[in-house]
Protein backbone atom coordinates (compact mmCIF):
# COMPACT_ATOMS: atom_id res chain seq x y z
CA UNK A 1 0.00 0.00 0.00
CA UNK A 2 1.01 3.57 -0.67
CA UNK A 3 1.45 5.81 2.34
CA UNK A 4 2.66 9.29 3.06
CA UNK A 5 4.87 9.65 6.10
CA UNK A 6 5.48 13.08 7.60
CA UNK A 7 8.66 13.14 9.66
CA UNK A 8 10.52 15.79 11.55
CA UNK A 9 14.30 16.06 11.20
CA UNK A 10 16.92 18.28 12.74
CA UNK A 11 18.03 20.85 10.19
CA UNK A 12 21.52 19.41 9.87
CA UNK A 13 23.45 17.68 7.10
CA UNK A 14 23.05 13.92 6.96
CA UNK A 15 19.67 13.84 8.69
CA UNK A 16 17.75 12.80 5.62
CA UNK A 17 20.12 9.93 4.91
CA UNK A 18 19.67 8.82 8.49
CA UNK A 19 15.93 8.88 8.03
CA UNK A 20 15.98 6.98 4.76
CA UNK A 21 18.21 4.22 6.07
CA UNK A 22 15.35 2.30 7.79
CA UNK A 23 13.37 2.55 4.55
CA UNK A 24 15.98 0.77 2.48
CA UNK A 25 16.89 -1.65 5.28
CA UNK A 26 13.24 -2.76 5.48
CA UNK A 27 13.07 -3.00 1.67
CA UNK A 28 10.21 -0.56 1.28
CA UNK A 29 9.78 1.14 -2.04
CA UNK A 30 10.56 4.83 -1.66
CA UNK A 31 8.47 6.71 -4.22
CA UNK A 32 9.33 10.27 -3.38
CA UNK A 33 10.76 12.64 -0.84
CA UNK A 34 9.35 16.13 -0.53
CA UNK A 35 12.07 18.24 0.91
CA UNK A 36 11.58 21.80 1.98
CA UNK A 37 14.11 23.05 -0.56
CA UNK A 38 11.90 21.90 -3.37
CA UNK A 39 8.33 22.09 -2.17
CA UNK A 40 6.63 23.58 0.78
CA UNK A 41 5.47 20.15 1.79
CA UNK A 42 8.48 20.25 4.00
CA UNK A 43 8.26 23.23 6.26
CA UNK A 44 10.24 24.39 9.19
CA UNK A 45 8.44 23.08 12.22
CA UNK A 46 10.32 24.87 14.93
CA UNK A 47 13.79 26.07 15.74
CA UNK A 48 16.24 23.91 13.82
CA UNK A 49 13.64 21.35 12.77
CA UNK A 50 12.33 20.61 9.32
CA UNK A 51 9.40 18.56 8.17
CA UNK A 52 9.75 16.17 5.26
CA UNK A 53 7.13 14.06 3.59
CA UNK A 54 8.04 10.60 2.30
CA UNK A 55 5.84 8.57 0.03
CA UNK A 56 6.39 4.84 0.48
CA UNK A 57 5.01 1.67 -0.95
CA UNK A 58 5.16 -1.26 1.48
CA UNK A 59 2.99 -3.65 3.49
CA UNK A 60 1.69 -2.25 6.74
CA UNK A 61 3.89 -4.35 9.13
CA UNK A 62 6.90 -3.05 7.19
CA UNK A 63 5.68 0.51 7.60
CA UNK A 64 5.28 -0.04 11.33
CA UNK A 65 8.82 -1.41 11.51
CA UNK A 66 10.20 1.58 9.63
CA UNK A 67 8.40 3.91 12.03
CA UNK A 68 9.93 2.10 15.05
CA UNK A 69 13.41 2.17 13.54
CA UNK A 70 13.15 5.86 12.77
CA UNK A 71 11.97 6.73 16.24
CA UNK A 72 14.90 4.78 17.71
CA UNK A 73 17.29 7.13 15.89
CA UNK A 74 15.45 10.14 17.35
CA UNK A 75 13.39 11.06 14.30
CA UNK A 76 9.82 12.08 15.07
CA UNK A 77 7.17 10.50 12.89
CA UNK A 78 4.40 13.04 12.85
CA UNK A 79 1.81 11.36 10.72
CA UNK A 80 1.27 8.36 8.49
CA UNK A 81 -1.37 8.78 5.81
CA UNK A 82 -2.91 5.74 4.22
CA UNK A 83 -3.41 6.83 0.70
CA UNK A 84 -1.12 8.99 -1.25
CA UNK A 85 -3.64 10.62 -3.51
CA UNK A 86 -6.80 11.90 -1.96
CA UNK A 87 -7.93 14.23 -4.74
CA UNK A 88 -8.62 13.53 -8.36
CA UNK A 89 -9.82 15.67 -11.24
CA UNK A 90 -10.42 15.27 -14.91
CA UNK A 91 -9.84 18.29 -17.11
CA UNK A 92 -10.27 18.88 -20.82
CA UNK A 93 -7.70 20.52 -23.05
CA UNK A 94 -8.45 21.64 -26.57
CA UNK A 95 -6.03 22.87 -29.24
CA UNK A 96 -2.76 21.64 -30.63
CA UNK A 97 -2.32 19.38 -27.63
CA UNK A 98 -0.01 16.91 -29.38
CA UNK A 99 2.05 19.40 -31.38
CA UNK A 100 2.76 21.36 -28.24
CA UNK A 101 4.43 18.28 -26.71
CA UNK A 102 1.90 16.39 -24.63
CA UNK A 103 4.74 14.47 -22.94
CA UNK A 104 6.20 17.69 -21.66
CA UNK A 105 2.78 18.70 -20.29
CA UNK A 106 2.42 15.40 -18.45
CA UNK A 107 5.96 15.29 -17.10
CA UNK A 108 5.70 18.84 -15.78
CA UNK A 109 2.70 17.71 -13.73
CA UNK A 110 4.39 14.47 -12.60
CA UNK A 111 7.58 16.31 -11.69
CA UNK A 112 5.80 18.36 -9.06
CA UNK A 113 5.89 15.26 -6.87
CA UNK A 114 2.50 16.24 -5.47
CA UNK A 115 0.41 14.97 -8.34
CA UNK A 116 0.47 12.61 -11.27
CA UNK A 117 -1.37 12.09 -14.52
CA UNK A 118 -3.13 8.75 -14.24
CA UNK A 119 -5.23 8.70 -17.36
CA UNK A 120 -5.44 10.43 -20.68
CA UNK A 121 -7.54 10.11 -23.78
CA UNK A 122 -7.00 12.00 -27.00
CA UNK A 123 -9.28 12.60 -29.91
CA UNK A 124 -8.00 14.05 -33.13
CA UNK A 125 -10.71 14.21 -35.79
CA UNK A 126 -8.34 15.24 -38.59
CA UNK A 127 -4.83 16.45 -39.11
CA UNK A 128 -4.74 20.24 -38.61
CA UNK A 129 -7.96 20.15 -36.62
CA UNK A 130 -7.64 20.88 -32.91
CA UNK A 131 -7.17 17.88 -30.67
CA UNK A 132 -9.29 17.32 -27.60
CA UNK A 133 -7.78 15.64 -24.58
CA UNK A 134 -9.24 14.46 -21.29
CA UNK A 135 -6.61 14.21 -18.59
CA UNK A 136 -7.10 12.74 -15.15
CA UNK A 137 -4.80 13.95 -12.42
CA UNK A 138 -4.42 12.62 -8.89
CA UNK A 139 -3.06 14.95 -6.26
CA UNK A 140 -1.92 14.45 -2.70
CA UNK A 141 -4.52 16.82 -1.20
CA UNK A 142 -6.75 19.78 -1.83
CA UNK A 143 -4.00 22.39 -1.56
CA UNK A 144 -1.77 20.40 -3.86
CA UNK A 145 -4.63 20.11 -6.34
CA UNK A 146 -4.95 23.88 -6.37
CA UNK A 147 -1.23 24.18 -7.09
CA UNK A 148 -1.47 21.71 -9.94
CA UNK A 149 -4.43 23.57 -11.42
CA UNK A 150 -2.42 26.79 -11.27
CA UNK A 151 0.43 25.01 -13.05
CA UNK A 152 -1.98 23.65 -15.67
CA UNK A 153 -3.28 27.16 -16.30
CA UNK A 154 0.29 28.31 -16.81
CA UNK A 155 1.14 25.47 -19.19
CA UNK A 156 -2.03 25.83 -21.26
CA UNK A 157 -1.56 29.57 -21.51
CA UNK A 158 2.01 29.13 -22.64
CA UNK A 159 0.97 26.51 -25.22
CA UNK A 160 -2.17 28.38 -26.27
CA UNK A 161 -4.55 25.57 -25.34
CA UNK A 162 -8.08 25.93 -24.01
CA UNK A 163 -8.34 24.45 -20.54
CA UNK A 164 -11.80 23.40 -19.35
CA UNK A 165 -11.91 22.95 -15.59
CA UNK A 166 -14.58 21.34 -13.43
CA UNK A 167 -17.24 23.65 -11.99
CA UNK A 168 -16.57 22.50 -8.42
CA UNK A 169 -13.09 23.95 -8.57
CA UNK A 170 -12.60 27.37 -7.00
Amino acid sequence: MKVTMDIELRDEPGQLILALEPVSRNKANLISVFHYHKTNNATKTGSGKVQVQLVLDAKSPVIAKIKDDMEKTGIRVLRIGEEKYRETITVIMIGHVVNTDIRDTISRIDETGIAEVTDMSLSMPEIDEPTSAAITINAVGKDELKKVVALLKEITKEKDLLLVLPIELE
Partner: protein
Amino acid sequence: MKTVKASIIGFGSIGQGVARVLLMKKEDLKKEGIEIKVVAITDSKGAVIDENGLDLEKCLAVKAEKGTIAEKAMTGIDVVNQVEHDLVIEVSPTDVITGGAGLLNMQAAFENGRSVVTSNKGPLTLKFKELNETAEKNGCAFRYEATVGGAMPIINLTKEVMAGNEISSIKGIFNGTCNYILTRMLEEKSTYSEILTEAVDLGIAETDPTYDVEGIDTAGKVVILANAVFGMNKTINDVDRTGITQITYEALEMSAKNGKTIKLIGEVRKDGTLTVSPRLVPIGHPLSVSGTLNVASIQTDLAGEITVTGKGAGSIETASAILSDIISIYKQD
Protein backbone atom coordinates in the same frame (compact mmCIF):
# COMPACT_ATOMS: atom_id res chain seq x y z
CA MET B 1 -55.28 54.15 -7.40
CA LYS B 2 -51.84 55.35 -8.40
CA THR B 3 -51.66 56.42 -12.04
CA VAL B 4 -48.18 56.08 -13.49
CA LYS B 5 -47.38 57.84 -16.74
CA ALA B 6 -44.79 55.82 -18.65
CA SER B 7 -42.83 55.86 -21.87
CA ILE B 8 -41.56 52.82 -23.75
CA ILE B 9 -38.25 53.66 -25.40
CA GLY B 10 -37.62 51.03 -28.08
CA PHE B 11 -40.49 49.08 -29.59
CA GLY B 12 -38.87 45.86 -30.74
CA SER B 13 -39.32 42.41 -29.30
CA ILE B 14 -39.18 43.52 -25.67
CA GLY B 15 -40.96 46.88 -26.06
CA GLN B 16 -43.88 45.14 -27.73
CA GLY B 17 -43.76 42.40 -25.11
CA VAL B 18 -44.12 45.08 -22.43
CA ALA B 19 -47.14 46.53 -24.24
CA ARG B 20 -48.74 43.09 -24.44
CA VAL B 21 -48.04 42.31 -20.81
CA LEU B 22 -49.49 45.65 -19.71
CA LEU B 23 -52.66 44.84 -21.66
CA MET B 24 -52.82 41.28 -20.29
CA LYS B 25 -52.25 42.35 -16.70
CA LYS B 26 -54.27 45.54 -16.60
CA GLU B 27 -56.77 44.15 -14.08
CA ASP B 28 -54.09 42.56 -11.90
CA LEU B 29 -52.24 45.86 -11.79
CA LYS B 30 -55.43 47.58 -10.69
CA LYS B 31 -55.67 45.11 -7.81
CA GLU B 32 -52.22 46.27 -6.75
CA GLY B 33 -53.52 49.82 -6.93
CA ILE B 34 -51.53 50.70 -10.03
CA GLU B 35 -52.66 52.05 -13.37
CA ILE B 36 -49.98 52.35 -16.06
CA LYS B 37 -50.71 54.93 -18.70
CA VAL B 38 -48.23 54.72 -21.59
CA VAL B 39 -47.97 58.29 -22.90
CA ALA B 40 -45.16 57.82 -25.42
CA ILE B 41 -43.52 55.06 -27.44
CA THR B 42 -40.45 55.41 -29.65
CA ASP B 43 -38.64 53.25 -32.16
CA SER B 44 -35.69 54.09 -34.41
CA LYS B 45 -37.92 56.14 -36.73
CA GLY B 46 -39.65 58.38 -34.23
CA ALA B 47 -42.35 58.59 -31.59
CA VAL B 48 -46.04 58.40 -30.94
CA ILE B 49 -47.36 60.49 -28.08
CA ASP B 50 -50.66 60.90 -26.24
CA GLU B 51 -50.64 62.63 -22.87
CA ASN B 52 -53.93 60.90 -22.01
CA GLY B 53 -52.54 57.44 -22.64
CA LEU B 54 -51.97 55.56 -25.87
CA ASP B 55 -54.15 52.71 -27.06
CA LEU B 56 -51.54 49.92 -26.80
CA GLU B 57 -53.62 47.49 -28.85
CA LYS B 58 -53.60 50.00 -31.68
CA CYS B 59 -49.89 50.76 -31.31
CA LEU B 60 -49.06 47.05 -31.64
CA ALA B 61 -51.22 46.78 -34.73
CA VAL B 62 -49.64 49.86 -36.32
CA LYS B 63 -46.13 48.58 -35.61
CA ALA B 64 -47.00 45.19 -37.14
CA GLU B 65 -48.55 46.76 -40.18
CA LYS B 66 -46.24 49.68 -40.95
CA GLY B 67 -43.03 48.59 -39.28
CA THR B 68 -42.96 51.76 -37.21
CA ILE B 69 -45.14 53.62 -34.73
CA ALA B 70 -43.53 56.96 -35.63
CA GLU B 71 -45.92 59.86 -35.99
CA LYS B 72 -43.54 62.54 -34.78
CA ALA B 73 -39.86 62.98 -35.59
CA MET B 74 -38.84 62.71 -31.94
CA THR B 75 -36.10 60.43 -30.64
CA GLY B 76 -36.05 58.55 -27.37
CA ILE B 77 -34.10 61.27 -25.62
CA ASP B 78 -36.50 63.96 -26.91
CA VAL B 79 -39.37 62.06 -25.33
CA VAL B 80 -37.48 61.60 -22.08
CA ASN B 81 -36.66 65.30 -21.92
CA GLN B 82 -39.86 66.81 -23.22
CA VAL B 83 -42.85 64.59 -22.44
CA GLU B 84 -44.14 64.83 -18.89
CA HIS B 85 -44.15 61.34 -17.30
CA ASP B 86 -42.99 59.33 -14.26
CA LEU B 87 -41.42 56.16 -15.61
CA VAL B 88 -39.10 55.40 -18.53
CA ILE B 89 -39.21 51.80 -19.71
CA GLU B 90 -35.84 51.69 -21.49
CA VAL B 91 -35.76 48.76 -23.93
CA SER B 92 -33.58 50.07 -26.74
CA PRO B 93 -30.67 48.01 -28.15
CA THR B 94 -27.71 47.08 -25.96
CA ASP B 95 -24.35 48.68 -26.66
CA VAL B 96 -21.60 47.52 -24.29
CA ILE B 97 -18.92 49.66 -25.91
CA THR B 98 -20.40 53.14 -25.47
CA GLY B 99 -23.65 52.50 -23.64
CA GLY B 100 -25.47 53.78 -26.74
CA ALA B 101 -28.65 55.82 -26.72
CA GLY B 102 -29.76 53.83 -23.67
CA LEU B 103 -27.13 55.43 -21.46
CA LEU B 104 -28.13 58.94 -22.49
CA ASN B 105 -31.81 58.08 -22.09
CA MET B 106 -31.31 56.81 -18.56
CA GLN B 107 -29.20 59.77 -17.49
CA ALA B 108 -31.74 62.19 -18.93
CA ALA B 109 -34.57 60.31 -17.25
CA PHE B 110 -33.02 60.71 -13.80
CA GLU B 111 -32.14 64.35 -14.40
CA ASN B 112 -35.82 64.92 -15.18
CA GLY B 113 -36.83 63.07 -12.02
CA ARG B 114 -38.20 60.04 -13.89
CA SER B 115 -37.68 56.46 -12.69
CA VAL B 116 -36.22 53.82 -15.01
CA VAL B 117 -36.99 50.15 -15.55
CA THR B 118 -34.81 48.49 -18.17
CA SER B 119 -33.69 45.31 -19.91
CA ASN B 120 -30.76 47.13 -21.55
CA LYS B 121 -27.43 45.86 -20.13
CA GLY B 122 -25.09 48.22 -21.97
CA PRO B 123 -25.35 51.28 -19.71
CA LEU B 124 -25.19 49.13 -16.56
CA THR B 125 -21.98 47.36 -17.55
CA LEU B 126 -20.26 50.70 -18.09
CA LYS B 127 -21.74 53.24 -15.66
CA PHE B 128 -23.45 51.27 -12.95
CA LYS B 129 -22.31 53.40 -10.04
CA GLU B 130 -22.91 56.74 -11.75
CA LEU B 131 -26.40 55.74 -12.86
CA ASN B 132 -27.37 54.57 -9.40
CA GLU B 133 -25.98 57.70 -7.82
CA THR B 134 -27.80 59.96 -10.27
CA ALA B 135 -31.02 58.03 -9.68
CA GLU B 136 -30.66 58.36 -5.94
CA LYS B 137 -29.72 62.03 -6.05
CA ASN B 138 -32.89 62.76 -8.02
CA GLY B 139 -35.09 60.55 -5.87
CA CYS B 140 -35.77 58.11 -8.71
CA ALA B 141 -36.15 54.35 -8.71
CA PHE B 142 -33.83 52.31 -10.96
CA ARG B 143 -34.68 48.69 -11.65
CA TYR B 144 -33.03 46.23 -14.04
CA GLU B 145 -34.07 42.67 -13.19
CA ALA B 146 -34.56 41.90 -16.92
CA THR B 147 -30.92 42.67 -17.75
CA VAL B 148 -29.70 39.39 -16.23
CA GLY B 149 -31.31 36.13 -17.18
CA GLY B 150 -34.49 37.56 -18.73
CA ALA B 151 -37.39 36.05 -16.83
CA MET B 152 -35.17 34.26 -14.33
CA PRO B 153 -35.32 36.18 -11.05
CA ILE B 154 -31.87 36.83 -9.67
CA ILE B 155 -31.25 40.48 -8.81
CA ASN B 156 -34.37 41.14 -6.78
CA LEU B 157 -34.15 37.63 -5.34
CA THR B 158 -30.69 38.19 -3.93
CA LYS B 159 -31.15 41.84 -2.98
CA GLU B 160 -34.55 41.54 -1.36
CA VAL B 161 -35.89 38.05 -0.82
CA MET B 162 -32.58 36.72 0.45
CA ALA B 163 -31.63 39.82 2.41
CA GLY B 164 -29.56 38.99 5.50
CA ASN B 165 -27.71 36.16 3.82
CA GLU B 166 -24.08 36.69 3.03
CA ILE B 167 -23.48 35.64 -0.55
CA SER B 168 -20.08 34.19 -1.35
CA SER B 169 -20.57 33.56 -5.05
CA ILE B 170 -23.03 33.43 -7.89
CA LYS B 171 -22.39 31.23 -10.87
CA GLY B 172 -24.58 30.25 -13.71
CA ILE B 173 -25.49 30.06 -17.35
CA PHE B 174 -26.57 33.51 -18.49
CA ASN B 175 -26.62 33.10 -22.25
CA GLY B 176 -29.24 30.93 -23.91
CA THR B 177 -27.52 31.00 -27.31
CA CYS B 178 -24.31 29.42 -25.99
CA ASN B 179 -26.27 26.91 -23.98
CA TYR B 180 -28.27 25.96 -27.05
CA ILE B 181 -25.15 25.52 -29.20
CA LEU B 182 -23.33 23.35 -26.63
CA THR B 183 -26.43 21.24 -25.98
CA ARG B 184 -27.07 20.66 -29.68
CA MET B 185 -23.43 19.90 -30.58
CA LEU B 186 -23.51 16.85 -28.35
CA GLU B 187 -27.03 15.79 -29.34
CA GLU B 188 -26.27 16.03 -33.05
CA LYS B 189 -22.61 14.94 -32.90
CA SER B 190 -21.88 18.12 -34.82
CA THR B 191 -19.20 20.77 -34.97
CA TYR B 192 -19.50 24.21 -33.47
CA SER B 193 -19.93 25.85 -36.87
CA GLU B 194 -22.63 23.42 -38.02
CA ILE B 195 -24.75 24.13 -34.96
CA LEU B 196 -24.07 27.85 -35.13
CA THR B 197 -25.58 27.85 -38.63
CA GLU B 198 -28.63 26.02 -37.28
CA ALA B 199 -28.96 28.51 -34.41
CA VAL B 200 -28.79 31.47 -36.80
CA ASP B 201 -31.45 29.87 -39.04
CA LEU B 202 -33.74 29.40 -36.04
CA GLY B 203 -33.21 32.98 -34.89
CA ILE B 204 -31.56 31.78 -31.66
CA ALA B 205 -28.21 33.31 -32.65
CA GLU B 206 -27.59 36.65 -34.33
CA THR B 207 -26.01 36.69 -37.81
CA ASP B 208 -22.99 38.16 -36.06
CA PRO B 209 -22.88 35.92 -32.99
CA THR B 210 -19.65 37.36 -31.54
CA TYR B 211 -21.38 39.05 -28.66
CA ASP B 212 -22.89 35.78 -27.43
CA VAL B 213 -20.30 33.14 -28.33
CA GLU B 214 -17.26 35.10 -27.19
CA GLY B 215 -18.88 35.44 -23.77
CA ILE B 216 -19.30 39.24 -23.94
CA ASP B 217 -23.00 39.07 -23.16
CA THR B 218 -22.35 36.76 -20.20
CA ALA B 219 -19.54 39.04 -19.01
CA GLY B 220 -21.95 42.00 -19.05
CA LYS B 221 -24.37 40.10 -16.84
CA VAL B 222 -21.60 39.03 -14.47
CA VAL B 223 -20.64 42.70 -14.12
CA ILE B 224 -24.22 43.70 -13.32
CA LEU B 225 -24.44 40.98 -10.66
CA ALA B 226 -21.08 42.01 -9.17
CA ASN B 227 -22.24 45.61 -8.89
CA ALA B 228 -25.87 45.07 -7.96
CA VAL B 229 -25.55 42.14 -5.58
CA PHE B 230 -22.03 42.51 -4.20
CA GLY B 231 -21.83 46.30 -4.30
CA MET B 232 -18.65 46.22 -6.40
CA ASN B 233 -17.72 48.82 -8.96
CA LYS B 234 -16.71 46.65 -11.93
CA THR B 235 -16.86 47.10 -15.65
CA ILE B 236 -16.75 44.59 -18.46
CA ASN B 237 -12.97 45.03 -18.68
CA ASP B 238 -12.59 43.44 -15.25
CA VAL B 239 -13.89 40.09 -16.46
CA ASP B 240 -11.51 37.24 -17.29
CA ARG B 241 -13.37 35.95 -20.32
CA THR B 242 -13.23 32.91 -22.62
CA GLY B 243 -16.03 32.01 -25.04
CA ILE B 244 -17.19 28.74 -26.58
CA THR B 245 -15.82 28.99 -30.13
CA GLN B 246 -12.99 26.54 -29.45
CA ILE B 247 -15.19 23.83 -27.97
CA THR B 248 -15.13 20.66 -30.06
CA TYR B 249 -17.65 17.86 -30.38
CA GLU B 250 -14.92 15.46 -29.24
CA ALA B 251 -14.43 17.41 -26.02
CA LEU B 252 -18.16 17.25 -25.31
CA GLU B 253 -18.18 13.52 -26.01
CA MET B 254 -15.19 12.87 -23.72
CA SER B 255 -16.83 14.90 -21.01
CA ALA B 256 -20.04 12.92 -21.41
CA LYS B 257 -18.06 9.70 -20.91
CA ASN B 258 -16.92 11.18 -17.60
CA GLY B 259 -20.51 12.03 -16.67
CA LYS B 260 -20.06 15.70 -17.43
CA THR B 261 -21.16 18.33 -19.87
CA ILE B 262 -19.51 21.60 -20.92
CA LYS B 263 -21.33 24.86 -20.18
CA LEU B 264 -20.37 28.50 -20.52
CA ILE B 265 -20.34 29.61 -16.90
CA GLY B 266 -20.30 33.17 -15.63
CA GLU B 267 -19.11 33.56 -12.06
CA VAL B 268 -18.76 36.37 -9.52
CA ARG B 269 -16.94 35.71 -6.28
CA LYS B 270 -16.98 37.77 -3.14
CA ASP B 271 -13.22 38.30 -3.47
CA GLY B 272 -13.86 40.33 -6.64
CA THR B 273 -12.97 37.66 -9.21
CA LEU B 274 -15.19 37.81 -12.28
CA THR B 275 -14.88 35.04 -14.84
CA VAL B 276 -16.62 33.72 -17.91
CA SER B 277 -15.32 30.38 -19.15
CA PRO B 278 -16.41 26.97 -20.40
CA ARG B 279 -16.54 24.59 -17.44
CA LEU B 280 -17.21 20.91 -16.86
CA VAL B 281 -20.54 20.46 -15.09
CA PRO B 282 -21.60 17.02 -13.81
CA ILE B 283 -24.74 15.73 -15.53
CA GLY B 284 -27.54 16.04 -12.97
CA HIS B 285 -25.86 19.02 -11.27
CA PRO B 286 -28.28 21.93 -10.73
CA LEU B 287 -26.36 23.97 -13.33
CA SER B 288 -26.57 21.32 -16.05
CA VAL B 289 -29.73 22.71 -17.69
CA SER B 290 -30.15 22.24 -21.43
CA GLY B 291 -31.35 24.17 -24.44
CA THR B 292 -31.77 27.91 -24.22
CA LEU B 293 -32.47 27.94 -20.47
CA ASN B 294 -30.59 30.12 -18.03
CA VAL B 295 -29.69 29.09 -14.50
CA ALA B 296 -27.95 30.63 -11.53
CA SER B 297 -26.66 29.12 -8.35
CA ILE B 298 -26.16 31.38 -5.35
CA GLN B 299 -23.87 30.32 -2.49
CA THR B 300 -24.97 31.79 0.81
CA ASP B 301 -23.96 31.42 4.42
CA LEU B 302 -27.39 30.83 5.93
CA ALA B 303 -29.54 29.40 3.17
CA GLY B 304 -26.78 27.25 1.64
CA GLU B 305 -26.96 26.89 -2.10
CA ILE B 306 -29.99 28.23 -3.95
CA THR B 307 -30.54 27.59 -7.62
CA VAL B 308 -32.97 29.38 -9.93
CA THR B 309 -33.66 28.60 -13.54
CA GLY B 310 -35.79 30.19 -16.20
CA LYS B 311 -36.08 31.53 -19.70
CA GLY B 312 -33.20 33.93 -20.33
CA ALA B 313 -34.83 35.58 -23.32
CA GLY B 314 -38.08 36.01 -25.15
CA SER B 315 -40.50 38.87 -25.58
CA ILE B 316 -43.16 38.07 -22.97
CA GLU B 317 -40.74 36.32 -20.60
CA THR B 318 -38.41 39.31 -20.42
CA ALA B 319 -41.36 41.70 -20.21
CA SER B 320 -42.52 39.75 -17.15
CA ALA B 321 -39.36 40.79 -15.31
CA ILE B 322 -39.96 44.41 -16.36
CA LEU B 323 -43.53 44.18 -15.05
CA SER B 324 -42.37 42.84 -11.69
CA ASP B 325 -39.93 45.74 -11.40
CA ILE B 326 -42.70 48.23 -12.18
CA ILE B 327 -44.97 46.70 -9.57
CA SER B 328 -42.25 46.67 -6.94
CA ILE B 329 -41.62 50.40 -7.46
CA TYR B 330 -45.20 51.59 -7.27
CA LYS B 331 -46.62 49.08 -4.82
CA GLN B 332 -44.41 50.53 -2.09
CA ASP B 333 -45.96 53.98 -2.43
